[in-house]
């Protein structure tokens, strides 16, 4: 095994992991606040990708700028889904919530299929071709920028949650819904905002990878499943866990592609998931609850 290849895999995996982290942070935020698993997470992300594709091809806006618009659009979508659908089953059994979100996922994925067709697409960005050699390994500039922006967004999200009043309110509602109600927090509003912010994360993440990762409507399903893997491995509801978990899973898949073969890379994360589920279901950074 060539050491350079391993180093390259490690680096590429780490850089791509920023997007995984951002995606998982969004999912874990939604789960942490309202105990609902967003099965449409990956499909929302694909909509972020197609939105950046439209903005690039129709308006000539580079995805590294349009991610802000995509985040805003997905925020609105998340808000709508929460207000219109999730809010009605917030007290229903988990199975019902899972099925509802599965329905949303089916609708979103296949709307994309009807609108954009089944062929894989990719957004062209001037950054796409640029590389930077660091000794024996090269850095894909697009990946580097994606990584930096994704990490900055994650940091901004933690600042929002820990330093602003609305953020503190969201955390309060996540910790103890009943307590939050008692002290007069408008929990319904908090839920809607949290779902919106969670969706905005994948809106931005989608735009940021749209020039790196070729995508098609079914990509959403595999992104959803990857997000689930990451948040379980990191610990459901833990922001830090989602962040580290995203990097970890990305690196593991990237190394899996080097050591095994590219089509087997997901095997690594699924195996990791099963081990975590069985032996540490609370995840690496989650609180231990029965």
């Amino acid at each position, binding site marked *: 095994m060539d050491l350079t290849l391993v180093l390259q895999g490690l680096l590429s995996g780490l850089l791509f992991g920023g997007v995984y982290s951002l995606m998982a942070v969004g999912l874990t935020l939604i789960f942490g606040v309202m105990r609902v698993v967003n099965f449409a997470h990956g499909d929302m992300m694909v909509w972020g990708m197609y939105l950046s594709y439209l903005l690039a091809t129709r308006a000539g806006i580079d995805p590294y700028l349009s991610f802000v618009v995509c985040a805003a659009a997905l925020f609105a979508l998340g808000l709508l889904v929460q207000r219109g659908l999730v809010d009605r089953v917030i007290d229903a059994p988990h199975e019902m919530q899972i099925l509802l979100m599965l329905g949303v996922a089916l609708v979103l994925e296949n709307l994309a299929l009807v609108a954009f067709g089944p062929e894989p697409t990719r957004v062209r960005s001037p950054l796409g071709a640029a590389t930077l050699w660091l000794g024996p390994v090269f850095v894909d500039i697009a990946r580097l920028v994606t990584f930096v922006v994704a990490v900055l967004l994650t940091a901004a999200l933690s600042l929002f949650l820990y330093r602003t009043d609305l953020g503190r309110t969201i955390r309060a509602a996540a910790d103890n819904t009943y307590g939050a109600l008692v002290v007069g927090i408008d929990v319904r509003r908090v839920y809607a905002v949290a779902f919106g912010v969670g969706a905005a994360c994948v809106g931005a993440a989608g735009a940021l990878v749209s020039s790196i990762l070729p995508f098609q409507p079914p990509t959403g*399903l595999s992104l959803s*499943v990857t997000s*689930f*893997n990451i948040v379980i491995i990191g610990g459901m509801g833990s922001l830090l866990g989602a962040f580290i978990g995203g990097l970890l899973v990305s690196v593991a898949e990237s190394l899996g592609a080097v050591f095994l073969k590219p089509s087997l890379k997901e095997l690594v994360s699924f195996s990791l998931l099963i081990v975590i589920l069985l032996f540490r*279901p609370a995840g690496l950074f989650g609180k231990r609850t029965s």
Partner: protein
Amino acid sequence: MRWAVVAALAVLLALPAVLSSYAVTIFILIFFYGFLGQAWNIVGGYAGQLSAGHAAFVGVGGYTAAMLSIEAGLTPWVGMFVGAALAALLGAIIGYLGFRFGLRGFYFVLLTVAFAEICRIAVSNIDAIGGALGLYITFTGDPRQFQFRDGRVYYYIALALMLAATATAWAIERQRFGIYLAAIREDEAAAEALGVNALKYKMLAMVVSTFLTGLGGTFYAFYLFSLQPNTLFGIPLSVEIIIRPIVGGAGTLLGPILGSFILTPLAELSRLYLGQGGLHGAHLIAYGVLLIGVVLFLPEGAYPRLRRVLQRSRLASVSGHPRSEPGDERSHPAPVSGHLRSEPGSRPPLQKTLLVVRGLSKRFGGLQAVAGLDLAVEHGEMLGLIGPNGAGKTTVFNLLSGFLTPDAGDVSFRDRSLVGLPPHAICRLGLARTFQLVRPFPRMSVLENVRVGALARHPQALEARARARDVVERVGLGAREHVTAGTLTLAERKRLELGRALATEPTLLLLDEVMAGLNPTEIEPIIRLIRGIHASGVSILLIEHNMRAVMALSHRIVVLSFGEKIAEGTPADIANHPKVVEAYLGDEYVRAAPA
């Protein structure tokens, strides 16, 4: 109802004679997806364990039969059972891991998805079984190779599969197995306390369900003649399997079939008319909208709703002639002799001590909840266990009944150690408990709730029902036996909790605050009820905050404070014991009290 079933069957058997070949194809798909939905229904509906990876079992079954046929020339008529057995083995492994490690809800969903995806990726990468391209079966039209030139043969095979799965579900539903699955779905811990081996029954459900699903794989392979890892193991097929029983009514016998009759033609027609216009995903959008609609407006599914509508119209047409439902034992009187060892008035003989607890200890993090507790309950005794809030009383019950494992100490019941036994085994040995916060199976009727307990001693569903009816009468809920437990008042729930535990025919009954939250007029009859149960020969260990009741009922009282026994004696001793007064009222009170 029976005639409706016979008529429907006759129509389905005769249909191929008049249908076009395209219509036959649609019916084949209706039956096939109805079959897969029914197979899933056994574990996903009846047992409430949401598997989202059932496609994997279709894949394992199909690939096995196809490979055996291609490589070894084994006829799929045999291969399908080999494939089904392998699917069931995989199901048993996944089920064991999930159930043993206590994965519920979303976690179980993910476990099943992860296994299905691992299978998909693995199969795509093994070239010996076709790799990513999959397997193709050459068409010979040889019936011995499960191949038929006439599509109507597939029609009858698919129909037979659907009927077989439905017959299986029907048989399960009517037996202890099915009643236990429903109890597990409603409240697993409460079911365990009533003697239900939840792990065993969930495993059984998983194995039956995945075996049937595996059979379906062979049909799939030899109907379509092509097997591709992404379609056969993929999440979309799992969604197809789940969605029909959910829409039709999960956990009901006809739900999966109704769901398939609604969704399959819808999917095929939209594939035909919209797919040709380039709108590939249109039928899946319709699925998604339907799924959302069902969750929001029809959460129990279409079949239960339909059944209610039908019943209402039937009631309207035969109003004035209330008929008892079939199997209703009220028409022929229940046996009176079978009461719980009722020897009214007679004192039970004093034998060796029934329950002996020595040095029992349990710590939660920094809190020593129970510290070196010694306790004994004699045969026929009524022992009160009191103490301030947080003294560790309920923890003691959880330790005795197997819901918690002690850190140290021993519990011996009828000369047998209970330490390490699961709750259902302890219940079957004759030690039953109630929960302080009552845990009825909310969507079952009062009678069905109690029947779960009665099944611990009477495995026949009908006999258990008769016993349950006696117990329901005994706890004073006779007039409410068909009411859904979720709608009972607190006082009634407490009686139900008591009745369910009593139906397991215990030797020793642990009662955890059965009077808490009740008003004085509700308490009096409960005290009489407990006296009656005790008089029929059941020993009782009672946690109670209502002092008047404890003092009136108990032969002896043990007082706990901060996990330790601080006093033990007759009610009169305890009432004046300084340590007890101190524990309840503070030492200031003791000093201030006149000596």
